[in-house]
């Protein structure tokens, strides 16, 4: 990677101040904006609203589980709430949370582009998301449903209630996700700034690229699955219904062909954030750039080979189970490689523990547990015991929340100064992170124990012997809730205080989005930037900044 100076005109330093937040104010200009940054922020607040709803549902569920029988809600309500919690958190939060918010916001800037390739489709994607979210939440009003987010037939195709509306919601949300994916791939291929070769791209972009590939390839399958489920409900077409000559296990194949890769739609962007935060806060180039970049792509491809590991006990053939088990271990390897690479990046670094780094370290510790407990589930004989117990629940929360969401928080704290031009209080951010970390472990470590002792998931009522661990888990979840509130307050308060103004590059990072003002100008770059150094070449970036400040 050539270590030349970042080429920018002196004029760029003294442009009149005006940024995407303040230029073109007014509700209408926001609602019909095609600016990727504004769309990213609209996505952010909408998703955070859904996250809040899903989180409150989680607390209600945990409170209900304080006692074996009825605590605060009835069995019907409980079953609908865990379904809604699952649907909201997977389809409405985890899938879009990083690509649609952080990705939308920084990806074009990282590429040195003014916008994504199809800005209007980007806006359409947002409104499809809103529409899909309304349908999903409306399904509860339209009769409710208690299928779980997995919609297994024939249960889902025979019960009355809001399943059909939810099905349409999932279909619409799929479209939204596809549009984001198409947009990112086209943008990365065609809108890179001069000098930004593939190996000069920040690893965040590689992660987004791999994610987009899965979005494009897997999401249509959930679309057709939902259409067929709707047909099954409306006309009893018989494809997934055994009593009509179909095969309910076929539905599971359809569902998991999407829903296993979707797990990587969630975690790859998380890993992408971590790959930015760790080198920046270690002030040292990332270790094994190519290994991380290609392991993202490798994970994306291999993620399509392993869906059957959700079906070891479903009546799938034993031999299919064997193959899926072996392939599952194959996908474990690139994830492990990434963890070692991040560790090696910290080796002999100069590590400062800013809030993004604290979350990144939390990610390493939590994702480590999530990944390693995955080994139990990839091993067929052990999975048979643990399948559909709280062990699974704990495992995927460690990967999805401990992985994706914690990584999202790392990224959020990392790019927050760029998004709003304000710093936050480091001490309170650290306190929030501590509460989140402890609360999270407090919630889910008891669930591992519950699961290995045989406590099945989706149980309203449970045996008395499980109560102690359930109470422990509930207390942990309250702590987690407190942590998230502290985090939210810490981030939001500075938005109303001018004295927290952020510099252009508060962390000393080296990728392109830090060369523009905070918050960025409406069109990102006044002149097309030319990339002359690598994304983790912090020394070159600093030299460049020093030169500019002297000129």
């Amino acid at each position, binding site marked *: 990677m*050539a270590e*030349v100076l970042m*080429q920018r005109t002196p004029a760029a330093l003294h442009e009149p101040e005006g940024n995407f937040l303040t230029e073109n104010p007014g509700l209408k200009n926001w609602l019909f904006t095609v600016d990727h940054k504004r769309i990213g922020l609209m996505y952010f607040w909408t998703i955070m609203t859904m996250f809040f709803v899903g989180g409150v549902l989680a607390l209600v569920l945990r409170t209900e589980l304080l006692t074996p029988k009825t605590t605060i809600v009835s069995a019907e309500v409980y079953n609908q709430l865990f379904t809604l919690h699952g649907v909201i958190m997977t389809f409405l939060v985890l899938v879009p949370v990083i690509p649609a918010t952080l990705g939308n916001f920084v990806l074009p800037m990282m590429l040195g582009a003014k916008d994504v390739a199809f800005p209007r489709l980007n806006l359409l994607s947002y409104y499809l998301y809103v529409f899909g979210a309304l349908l999903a939440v409306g399904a509860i009003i339209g009769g409710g449903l208690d299928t779980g987010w997995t919609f297994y037939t024939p249960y889902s195709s025979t019960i009355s209630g809001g399943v059909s509306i939810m099905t349409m919601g999932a279909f619409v949300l799929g479209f939204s996700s596809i549009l984001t994916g198409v947009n990112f791939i086209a943008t990365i*291929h*065609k809108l*890179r*700034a*001069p*000098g*930004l*070769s593939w190996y000069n791209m920040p690893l965040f972009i590689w992660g987004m690229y791999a994610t987009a590939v899965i979005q494009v*390839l897997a999401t249509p*399958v959930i679309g057709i699955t939902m259409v067929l489920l709707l047909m099954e409900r409306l006309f*009893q077409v*018989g494809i997934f219904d*055994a*009593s*009509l*000559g179909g*095969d309910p*296990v*076929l539905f599971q*194949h359809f569902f998991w*062909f999407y829903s296993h890769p979707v797990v990587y739609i969630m975690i790859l962007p998380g890993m992408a954030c971590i790959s930015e935060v760790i080198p920046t806060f270690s002030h040292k180039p990332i270790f094994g750039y190519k290994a991380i970049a290609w392991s993202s792509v490798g994970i994306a491809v291999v993620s*399509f*080979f392993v*869906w*059957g590991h959700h079906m070891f006990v479903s*009546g*799938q*053939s*034993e*031999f*299919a189970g064997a*193959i*899926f088990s072996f392939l599952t271990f194959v996908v474990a390897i690139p994830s492990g490689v990434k963890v070692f690479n991040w560790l090696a990046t910290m080796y002999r670094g100069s590590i400062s523990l800013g809030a993004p780094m604290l979350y990144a370290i939390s990610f390493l510790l939590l994702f480590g547990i999530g990944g390693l407990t995955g080994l139990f589930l990839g091993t067929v004989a052990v999975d048979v015991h643990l399948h559909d117990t709280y062990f699974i629940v704990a495992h995927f929360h460690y990967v999805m929340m401990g992985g994706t969401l914690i990584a999202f928080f790392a990224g959020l704290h990392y790019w927050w100064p760029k998004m709003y031009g304000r710093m936050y209080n480091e001490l309170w951010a650290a306190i929030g992170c501590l509460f989140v970390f402890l609360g999270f472990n407090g919630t889910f470590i008891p669930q591992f124990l519950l699961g290995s002792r045989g406590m099945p998931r989706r149980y309203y009522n449970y045996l008395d012997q499980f109560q102690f661990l359930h109470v422990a888990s509930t207390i942990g979840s309250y702590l987690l809730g407190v942590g998230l509130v502290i985090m939210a307050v810490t981030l939001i308060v500075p938005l109303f205080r001018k004295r927290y103004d952020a510099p252009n590059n508060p962390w000393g990072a080296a990728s392109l989005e830090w060369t523009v003002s905070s918050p960025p100008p409406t069109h990102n770059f006044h002149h097309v930037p*030319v990339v*002359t150094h690598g994304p983790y070449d912090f020394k070159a970036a600093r030299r460049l900044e020093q030169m500019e400040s002297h000129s």
Partner: protein
Amino acid sequence: MSVENEAMESIPHHGEEVHTHNHTKWYVANILALFVLTGITVLAAGINFGSNTVNLMIAMAIATVKAGLVALIFMHLLWEKGMNAVIFLSSLFFVALFMSFTFFDVETRAKIEPATPSEPGVSAGYQPAPLPLYVVAPKGGAASEHGEAAKAAGGQAAH
């Protein structure tokens, strides 16, 4: 590599467009070929090549040739840059993956029986026999008969 050269790489420029050639001859030839292949498909459907599966595969093979012609000539993959072809072909790869794994499951859901039935009387201290543990019974038989019968019953119930 100089900055200017890298710039050339990532931003395309005018004069590269390849669509200004006149391909009418190709198109006419292609549509005629497609007509002929349609005729062959219909004729082939009248012949029994052995089994249902083989007939279906032959029909699908001809359809694939036709689809290939459409993609190469009407959709310009023959003259396009590689990237679009890569995108198109990769989709086919994943379709094949989806179908083959699912079929593999369904086709190997055979009845599994113990290779050596344990003798009566030793059951109290029963130990699983050393390998081979199991044999796979031929497909069909009881399981699928049951399926047909139940389906017939279910079919009536549904209507």
